[in-house]
């Protein structure tokens, strides 16, 4: 069934170094998503699609879209897939704030991680930044330096005593990474 998130991808992921980085948002989805109706705008459809940024790919800029994303390459900028799952693979190195539904880190992230449901730091993974998620799993042996706020992110942004997890205070940092052109 097309809605089952854990289904394996129907097509092989583009891994060729020669291939251009595939944007997280598909330019032409293979089939119209059944849940693309306006009523489902808040909860994005669970697609089987999953984009992969291969190990040889380096992206500077912002990534956004509506499908799950696996990063095995390098990304500097911002990864914004709030409705979808983001996985930083073992080879992945990300210098960015990462937004996702479930964010799994097996590689290295220098930046803040915002997960709507869960953040998972695997044994081989490392985060140098803050985590904001209702549920956080840190596997033993993983490396982490930063703060963990296990309260669900507030849409309205209630005042927080600490700058590091306060979205408005993070803006200057965001501006730095957002300012770089994609594909540069």
């Amino acid at each position, binding site marked *: 069934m097309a809605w089952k998130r854990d289904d394996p991808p129907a097509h092989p992921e583009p891994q060729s170094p020669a291939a251009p980085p595939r944007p997280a948002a598909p330019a032409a989805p293979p089939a119209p998503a059944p849940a693309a109706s306006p009523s489902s705008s808040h909860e994005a459809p669970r697609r089987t699609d999953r984009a992969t940024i291969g190990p040889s790919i380096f992206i500077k800029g912002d990534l956004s879209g509506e499908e799950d994303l696996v990063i095995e390459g390098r990304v500097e900028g911002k990864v914004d897939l709030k409705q979808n799952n983001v996985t930083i693979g073992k080879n992945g190195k990300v210098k960015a704030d990462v937004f996702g539904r479930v964010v799994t880190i097996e590689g290295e992230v220098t930046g803040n991680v915002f997960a709507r449901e869960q953040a998972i730091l695997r044994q081989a993974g490392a985060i140098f930044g803050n985590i904001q998620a209702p549920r956080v*799993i840190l596997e033993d042996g993983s*490396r982490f330096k930063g*703060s963990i706020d*296990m*309260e669900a992110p507030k849409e309205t942004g209630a005042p927080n005593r600490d700058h*590091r997890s306060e979205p408005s205070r993070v803006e200057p940092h965001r501006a730095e990474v957002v300012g770089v052109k994609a594909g540069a």
Partner: protein
Amino acid sequence: MSWFSSRGTGPRKEQQGRVQALAEPDVHRSLALAALFDEIRGRKVQVLDLGPAVGSNVEFLSQFGCKLYIEDLYAALSSRTSSGEGALAGPEFFTEFLAVPDDTRFDVIFAWDLFNYLHRKELAHFAAQLRRHCDRGARLFALMSILKTMPAQPFRFKIQDEQHLIYERRTATERPSPRYAPAEMTDIFKGFRVDRSFLLRHGIQEFLLVKE
């Protein structure tokens, strides 16, 4: 060579001491921990954990709805030592290590047994840094060795429940213990008072300090 200079992960740097086989982790009752959790129950607190990231501790602390900062002090000190910097870490090291905004305030600090691995001067520098980030009532949990020797590396502590700690030993090698006395702790941690102190059978004295 002072006990301090043996800090580091390399076996050559570790002093030869009484070697114990790495056994299964020990579980010990912690009276200070129980007192600490009684104090913070029902409050949204900001916690500083100076040990390595331990998943089960994160999961345990999540029930308190806290904001948790994890800053692995021993890893930072070891990295500094191995990079060939001076023997003692100065105040600038601790400022850089705990690089949080000035207005960040911690309600609870888990120092575990890490203070045993700091020279008295380092401990004083670090205490001053911690003091800046604590308001009145903030609590600091520390485990001080009272034995002549202690493991060459800090234990890895896992909170089993509100009254029990799992001690995971990371090395069989031993080194001399600084054996900080309670009066010395009070002197170093000016601005804090000893709220609870428990001498445990396995050679550890638990301290629960409170910021005045």
